[in-house]
């Protein structure tokens, strides 16, 4: 290797080392992964590969697919066979104990796309399966449930004396056998809860939570600080009569889960930055906007708030094609962050946004200001072309 080649090789190695130090590759890779998997699972892609893409969320063959692929078998097709299910350890059978360890959750995936995640130390069994559903017994602990909605979906969860009939929804289900305490927190959709001590099924909608017990009130634990109840009318009617007699359900506590907007009102700065990035990369513009606005208002003056302002403008321009809004955000950055690290880019993009929305006078003003401040900046050519028109 000649001297010049050796020099270039060493130069390249130094540049690569500096890049490694400058970026946070593992964090960037992790961030992109989360967004990628969410988009692949939740957003079917319409193009030549659509038939393949649909199968990603229509069918999960579980561990059986691993074996099938190892043998070079063809793709999974929906059949009349009952759903199959598997954990990371492999395929499991009806009746097998599903036990999460002390320090890790246990995901369980089903071939029709639904999934469970047993919380640490939780224990459950799949009692029965059918083509579009299953019957699951939660013996203890809590489980996150995500059931894929289809017209014929039929999932049944049993927790103590309570049953939860599911059509397509996400929720967290809990059962504490020592305390005879049933809990349900709905993330989305609607379920119907029935039980030996319920006069009629109780409907719980997305955002709602309930805790129920068929035990005597004296046997119940002290309720946690209760939040205002938000229940359906049917649930309220079912609990209007005295609930102290043996076998009657006791409503221990009920509260509505915080929405994403509410969570943003109390999240830390770091959480808001993380959520905004996650939602933006996943394509959830509205939620990303919520987190970014929270950063701006709750942490005004911080560099993160400044970056949030810039990112709002960038999202408005690139993802929403709302050039007026984009111009407004870029102008806000220029005004609020006169020495900010994104000043040059904000001032330059302001020109573009004004130009794109057809605001000739706005574009001229922005162009003059830009050339005055950044005569050799990356947007100076654009600015000068507008000034010369």
């Amino acid at each position, binding site marked *: 290797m000649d001297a010049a080649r050796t020099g270039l090789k060493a130069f390249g190695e130094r540049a690569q080392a500096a890049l490694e130090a400058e970026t946070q590759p593992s964090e960037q*890779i992790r961030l992109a992964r989360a967004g990628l998997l969410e988009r692949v699972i939740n957003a079917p892609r319409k193009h030549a590969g659509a038939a393949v893409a649909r199968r990603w969320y229509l069918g999960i063959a579980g561990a059986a697919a691993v074996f099938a692929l190892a043998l070079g078998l063809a793709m999974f097709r929906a059949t009349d066979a009952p759903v199959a299910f598997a954990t990371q350890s492999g395929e499991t059978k009806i009746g097998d104990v599903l036990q999460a360890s002390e320090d890790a959750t246990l995901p369980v995936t089903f071939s029709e796309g639904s999934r*469970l995640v047993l919380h640490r130390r939780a224990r459950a069994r799949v009692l029965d399966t059918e083509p579009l559903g299953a019957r699951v017994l939660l013996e203890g602990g809590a489980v996150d449930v995500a059931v894929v909605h289809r017209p014929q979906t039929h999932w049944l969860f049993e927790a103590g004396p309570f049953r939860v009939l599911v059509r397509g929804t996400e929720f967290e289900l809990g059962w504490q056998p020592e305390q005879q305490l049933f809990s349900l927190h709905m993330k989305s959709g609607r379920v119907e809860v029935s039980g030996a001590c319920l006069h009629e099924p109780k409907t719980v909608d997305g955002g709602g939570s309930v805790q129920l017990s068929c035990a005597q009130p004296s046997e119940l634990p002290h309720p946690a600080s209760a939040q205002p109840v938000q229940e359906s009318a049917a649930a309220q009617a079912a609990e209007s009569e005295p609930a102290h007699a043996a076998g009657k359900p006791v409503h221990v506590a009920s509260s509505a889960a915080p929405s994403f907007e509410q969570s943003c009102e109390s999240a830390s700065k770091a959480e808001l930055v993380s959520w905004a990035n996650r939602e933006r990369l996943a394509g959830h513009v509205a939620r990303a906007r919520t987190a970014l606005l929270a950063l701006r208002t709750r942490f005004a003056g911080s560099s993160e708030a400044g970056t949030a302002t810039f990112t709002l403008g960038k999202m408005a321009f690139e993802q929403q094609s709302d050039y007026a809004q984009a111009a407004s955000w870029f102008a806000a950055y220029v005004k609020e962050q006169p020495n900010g690290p994104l000043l040059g880019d904000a001032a330059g993009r302001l020109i573009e946004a004004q130009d794109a929305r057809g605001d000739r006078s706005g574009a001229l003003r922005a162009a003059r200001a830009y050339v005055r401040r950044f005569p050799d900046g990356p947007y100076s050519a654009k600015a000068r072309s507008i000034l010369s028109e």
Partner: protein
Amino acid sequence: MVTPLKFVGDDRALVEALRAGHPGAVAALYERHAPAVHRALRSALGPDADLPDLLQEVFLRALDNIAELDDYERLRGWLCSIAVFTARALIRRRARRAWLSVFSPQRAASQEQAPPSTEARLALREVYELLDRLPVDERMAFALRIIDGMTLPEAAEACRTSLATFKRRLARAERAFVQAAEQRPALLPWLEGGTRWTQRGQG
């Protein structure tokens, strides 16, 4: 979030699994090849804050076009070629929008911005300022071969060009870059023995 079932198998099995819709295959594809793709993007573009977006875009494009891959052994090279395509498109898009700048918005060049806090950071900025001035094909050749460290065949494949064409682009890029780099004091510490550069050909 549920962790998808682990996929087990070589790249051939992985591609078949992707085409068959195995849910763990997407995660396996990403985990197996994301570091290399990220490295290629980063080498081409520098420390760009849009890298996570671009990384995602590369894999989405790959999943969209997985049916086109006919040689399983070329999976990584194929992914890197998509990365190069994505980076090239971004560079051209930014050039159309803002003349020369290809820095991340967070590192936009501004005479009034604070200088980089470290020598390495300054040198890195200088490197990519020089690369900005090269034609995009020559830039890619230099970035993949010199900075990323790909072999000539790997880099040529990533650029979807013949080895001969790639070598010509690389040679032009090296000449132009070295000539410009010698005028940049911030890059001198990175150059292994400054005289070696001015005494090219003298061994």
